């Protein structure tokens, strides 16, 4: 979904603020939330479902909420007033044919699904080069909605100028891990 969580390239958030001597948890409840997630992720929901639950937070709330507040929101969505059914194992990774190989030139599809996706907006419709092949991993776009499909995943390298235009650094690059469904050959 084209949500507020998809932040790559957005303007207006200001400088990065570093907290000196930051504790691991700022309050015990943050640790509780982290622990509840540890004990339930993978057993009662997949991480893709967890991420998608966070993405469904109303945008104004998402921006205002702290990190563990978002997690708490998602855990309540997934665990309260639900059947708490254990999900089955993902099973062994099948052998999946990889359509692309390192060095291949690819173009990302211009996909705008209303559901979950891990194709960030800033790399849609862009040309890049496959650097490495990994996976197969479950395709998040389907897995977040209860359908398991294993696909190869590719680290695709984009020049900063392809993504951000002439003003971008000539020698800067961005590598993004992209599932095969997000890619097509670049002729």
């Amino acid at each position, binding site marked *: 979904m084209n949500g507020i969580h998809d*932040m*790559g*390239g957005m*303007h207006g*958030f*200001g*400088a*990065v*603020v*570093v*907290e000196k001597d*930051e504790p*691991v*948890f700022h*309050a015990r*409840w943050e*640790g*509780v*939330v*982290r*622990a*509840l997630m540890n*004990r339930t992720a*993978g057993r*009662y929901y997949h991480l893709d479902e967890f991420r998608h639950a*966070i993405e469904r937070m*109303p945008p*104004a*709330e998402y*921006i*205002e*909420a702290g*990190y563990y*507040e978002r997690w*708490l*929101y998602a855990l*309540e969505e997934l*665990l*309260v007033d639900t059947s*708490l059914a254990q999900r089955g194992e993902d099973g062994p990774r099948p052998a999946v044919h990889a359509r692309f190989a390192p060095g291949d030139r690819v173009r990302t599809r211009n996909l705008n699904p209303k559901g979950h996706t*891990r*194709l*960030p907006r*800033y790399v849609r419709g862009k040309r890049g080069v496959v650097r490495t092949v*990994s*996976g197969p*991993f479950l395709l998040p776009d389907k897995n977040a909605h209860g359908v398991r499909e294993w696909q190869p*995943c590719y680290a695709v*390298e984009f020049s*900063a100028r392809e*993504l951000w235009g002439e003003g971008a*650094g000539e*020698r*800067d*690059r*961005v*590598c*993004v*891990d*992209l599932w095969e469904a997000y890619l097509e050959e670049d002729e």
Partner: protein
Amino acid sequence: MSHSHGDHEHHHAGGHQPEAPGDLEARALALQSLLVEKGILEPADVDRIIAAYEHDIGPMIGAHVVARAWNDTEYRRRLLADAPAAVRELGYQYPSSTHLVVLENRPGVHNLVVCTLCSCYPWAVLGLPPTWYKSAPYRSRAVSEPRAVLKEFGLELPEDTVVNVWDSSSDLRYMVLPERPAGTEGWSDEELAAIVSRDCMIGVALPRVPGAVAAR
């Protein structure tokens, strides 16, 4: 503290007001009670997990890995080929739920890690991420103006250095293997690990040799 399951009825209603910390704590504890009642966890599990993140899982693991790779070419080779196995080789746990890829800084090539969509982070080797890593400024700008972000961290790279930004969008997690700084020849793993900070392994800093130690 109420542990009734009904106390999340305000939950996710519209008209959001900034939530007081006490409310968040109450909601977290109510959820814990629900899961305890359902037999999904015990309160001791929560304490154990919190203690693990506060004491056992942190950047000292990544720093040890980096130091070993600096001192042992064969280990470095194994680390770059199969990072989870190389981490386990040093006696640490690496979960099977994610994979780890180690990005090698080289002369003229600098790597920087971000997750623009959420906050994916190699917590098994670096511990839990700092707030700035999860913040909107870092997530939005690391991919579009990495050099400006690095400058805010006090790191100014030469113009001709290539900056590779890695947006962790899949099941892969990334950790940077910085270049070994000059002046550390003959140092032990322990001495080397002491100069490898969390920020070096995210890519927003470089290892620095403290003057006093370098002059010995």
